[in-house]
């Protein structure tokens, strides 16, 4: 049992701090204690993953903007060593992460176990429900959150960058007299990315 005087209560995770940013960016911040003896092993595993580059299966799950893991044997400026090392995970998701964390459990349970398996309280990656509760219980309350594009998910960003590229290629230097034809070519190519669901129009 960890000694705490004022543990964060469940009521603090009602998500109200996101009210003004209700959009597609959701933070997840998880800090879990782990025995120090596993620090080198976990670091080595993360380093190998780093060398391997972004895994295709995670890329396919197009709801993660960014995810970062850090192993912290000691926090900056800490005088007295704490008993355990800590694993810090922070991520920016589209929408509610709770719906997606199941996908991690189901798609990459072994990797989840290799990352969080050293932390106390880890219930195993499968079945998904206990793992989801474990992450939820450890998700730190964010006091301030900022997203530069709160209304846009990962796939919309990818679509926008494709449109930008096609726009420059077809229309950037188009001869004014040829604009109509160039516009058609642009439309043919980019139409899949030109959805225009405007609630206000």
């Amino acid at each position, binding site marked *: 049992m960890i000694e705490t005087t004022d543990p964060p209560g469940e009521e603090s995770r009602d998500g109200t701090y996101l009210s003004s940013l209700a959009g597609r960016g959701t933070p997840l911040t998880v800090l879990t204690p782990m025995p120090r003896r596993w620090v080198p092993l976990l670091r080595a595993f993360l380093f190998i993953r780093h060398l391997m580059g972004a895994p295709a299966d995670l890329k396919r799950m197009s709801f993660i903007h960014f995810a970062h893991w850090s192993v912290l044997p000691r926090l900056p400026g800490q005088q007295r060593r704490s008993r355990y090392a800590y694993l810090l995970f922070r991520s920016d998701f589209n929408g509610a992460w709770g719906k997606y964390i199941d996908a991690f459990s189901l798609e990459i349970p072994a990797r989840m176990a290799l990352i969080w398996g050293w932390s*106390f309280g880890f219930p195993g990656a499968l079945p998904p429900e206990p793992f989801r509760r474990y992450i939820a219980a450890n998700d730190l309350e964010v006091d301030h959150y900022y997203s530069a594009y709160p209304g846009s998910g990962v796939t919309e*960003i990818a679509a926008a960058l494709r449109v930008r590229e096609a726009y420059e290629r077809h229309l950037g230097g188009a001869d004014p007299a040829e604009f109509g034809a160039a516009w058609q070519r642009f439309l043919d190519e980019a139409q899949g990315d030109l959805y225009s669901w405007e609630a206000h129009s």
Partner: protein
Amino acid sequence: MTRVKTGTRSVTVFARIADGRAADVRDRLRAYREQSPFAGVAGVHFARLVVLEHAVRQTRPAGMSRKARLLDLLAHGGRPPRPDDLPHPYLMLTATVDGEPADFFRRLQSLGPAADAIWGDCTGYPGHHRQESFVAFFADRGVRADYTFSGSPEGTVAQISEALRLRSKVAAFAATAPDDADGTLRSRFRIAVDLAEEQAPEPGPAAELELPDIQGLVLRGFGDHNVAAHLFLQVTSGAPARRWLRTVAPEVTSAAEVGDRPARALHLGISHAGLTRLEVPAAQLAAFPVEFREGMHGREEVLSPGRGTKPWQEPFDAPGGVDIVLLLSATGDAELEPWLDRLRTDAAECGGLRVVGEQRGARMPAPEGEGRLFIEHFGFADGISQPRVAGHGRGGPGEVLPPGEFVLGLPDVDGDIAGRHLPPGLSRNGSYLVYRKLEQDVPAFREMTAAAAGRFEGGADDVAAGLVGRRRDGEPLAPCPAGAHVRRANPRGSLPGGRKLSRRHLMLRRGIPYGPYLPPGADDDGVERGLLFLAVVGDPGRQFEFVQTEWLADGNAFGRGREEDVFATAGGPGARILLEGSPPAYVPVPRPLVTCRGGEYFLLPGLAALRGLGNPD
């Protein structure tokens, strides 16, 4: 810290919070709920701040699967966790940013006082003023990411934001304007998409504006108001004029109302002479800047070199000729006329005012603009690139500026408070209005461009475009000719000092043409026409007079010697404009194209200040 393939970096900083301060830090962070200070820091994809007081309590999970039990046995020998906690509270910043963490920390300095509010209770925090120690504070407390996964496609914040805006505009255009049957697809496209993309706005810290106290003209140009009438008044007796002010003040349109797109609007400006005659105490009058105190009449010798106020008309033909201006605008004459009649009568009968003039204005829609673009008398689309007040008028093109550039009492572009020395009761939430009546000689303009047309493939239109720097529909020339009007009115990054300096001299232009349009090919009808140039600024000297004298009335800054901008100053007869090309062309100016017929600097007081002026004592 780990380099990620996309060029983004993970930054995490743990700053120790001084004992007993954690709750205060949290309260201050929560106060940023509506408006994130990180919106003003470039290159931040995501950022979060967490006050970490304790580690989350852990227990050994019950009912683990066989595999999980095995792992627990391996990792912890099957033992439950023992007590542990953080040694002291931390403020954790974690962000995903473009470029190196050290560069991000330097950019973080632009948070200014907000940085002090966030980290001020952290031990060792040096304040935001000295860059070296500020950056070191964060660098010393950073932890690296051992592994980063990026699901987002490669791109900086600026690239992603710009692409998202472009996609949304292009898609909306594709949905509503599918074919080119009438051959206007391109110009429609340019208006819907390109014009807005010319300059991606930089996110600036959004301002908390007291909209109900600010005159509406500051935040909106009322593009749907097709007609305008300006009533010029002189104060003949202070007390009754103040009583009248009290009755008219409630009719003045506030910025809180403009979102509802009212069919008519009233704004009220008072000159320095007017404030004097309304018996504002001398000590308050003396606090105003010299441009406003002297009035435009006294400044014109410099604003229009070589010409001064000689061509000025009534009621501007003497210093202090206009004390108060009522600016009425409406969607049409039916809305405007009865209201104007009443306001004119009220003013004339109040016993303290004399109506000394009246000026009409009307918009001229561009043929290809679908009612969204307006032209001025020379035939060019007008009002295209306007600066914006940070946090207001989302999504438009143009430089985003802090509110003090246009509203007194708020932070300006230099980090100062606009109108710091002014009497607060009178100036709070006010703005300056630069009013200039500029007559345009359309036949002279057409003669001039036609005379030089032979040298250009596109004839007179090419000459005109070269002089203005845009085509008639607003499309900018690339590259923009060095001495072109649009470049001289706003050089953006083209002068030494770049945008950092040029953005100190931008105005909100609220002008409207007057007089009838002279169709192309029509003979000189001898009718007066032109532009009522209206600009809203927070500093008439730095914003209006600087541009008028340094950039428009003199060519030195642009390497053009004494060459004047013929669209804003005297210019001619006998003057020649150099149009660079191969070979270069000289365009002779037969006679002045634009002549100032009068003008004044007015204060557009905040509505509370206006009511205060109306008080009897």
